[in-house]
């Protein structure tokens, strides 16, 4: 499973990254987490609201800081 956290490096983006890491640890699954701050790359994903979360290259959340519990729901 591949998880991407997209953001400009601000506080809320880092909070989402933490939640994602926590969620993966809680679930005990084998997932790779990428933290993408390169605007060029972000743009190619077509997401406008930061921070955003992608699971297996599908945008599942944008413009929201999710808690670990909420991230877990997307990790099936």
């Amino acid at each position, binding site marked *: 499973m591949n998880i991407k956290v997209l953001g*400009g490096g601000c*506080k809320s983006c880092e909070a989402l990254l933490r939640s994602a890491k926590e969620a993966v640890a809680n679930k005990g699954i084998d997932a790779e987490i990428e933290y993408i701050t390169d*605007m060029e790359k972000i743009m190619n994903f*077509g997401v*406008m609201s930061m921070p955003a979360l992608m699971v297996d290259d599908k945008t599942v959340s944008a413009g929201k800081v999710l808690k670990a519990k909420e991230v877990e729901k997307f990790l099936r």
Partner: protein
Amino acid sequence: MWEFIQDEILGMKRLSSLIGRLLTAVGIDVNTRIGGSVQFFLYDVIKITVLLCVLIFLISNIQSFFPPERSRKIMGRFHGIGANIVGALLGTVTPFCSCSSIPIFMGFTSAGLPLGVTFSFLISSPMVDLGSLVLLMSIFGLKIAIAYVILGLIIAVIGGTLIEKLHMEDQIADFIRNSNSSVNIEAPDLTVKDRLIYARDQVTSTFKKVFPYILIGVGIGALIHNWIPESWIQTILGSSNPFGVILATIIGVPMYADIFGTIPVAEALLAKGALLGTILSFMMAVTTLSLPSLIMLKKAIKPKLLGTFIAICMVGIIIVGYGFNVFQNLLI
């Protein structure tokens, strides 16, 4: 009726006298400088905190209807100056954190929205938001609040239109212009429950983020309120200084603060005889332009456009400031 709302609900006059009585009861004389500062500080912190929580909750509900994806679509339906006006209006209700300004800029540009419309949106978004409208009403009254919002929107519309007329499309960072991504993600449909949860989360996160600024802002306000001689403020920011507005704008631009933090400072300055326009210029300058946001924007646009953007905002803010100073008597 309106006076009741103005004084008791928005202004919370009773809270001030209650705090005064409580302080007297514990042996602090509110007529002394220190006592007065403590009263101002407690009153303002409580008032702004309550207003902030209620406002953010209501506003987040409205905002949840206008994610950037939908705003982009709405703006795409309008043309000419109409698009700028819609852009400026949507800027006031579309929620985004400062680090989203570039993705939004890119998203708008790559969707083919005119540069000027995007800028109308980007100017009005930090300068005029619904929260500032109600806070301004609470402190300065209805007329000033409405005048502030309207003038802010006018700056956004004119600023955007000017940038359009200058044809600076070549000033957008190359990677944005050359990209041909036109991914269209639909905004998800939200239920009433989703919106309420969103609003609640917004209240908690905004409160955590903004509270230190409120404390600092009110602290500075309390200092000004009771310790700085009126004559100083009148000399620098009052009618005797013709450059007060320009000075206030230049000082305000690099500063980064939330509107909730700037208002107590503004309130105290006004009470001390600073001119209204000078104060409003300061507030607009602080909220609209700040070093962090300019550094962000620098990644997406080239220096010439960035400079034009800063210049247009500053000139607009300065004109508004002098305008308010001239018409101050009609509004207060």
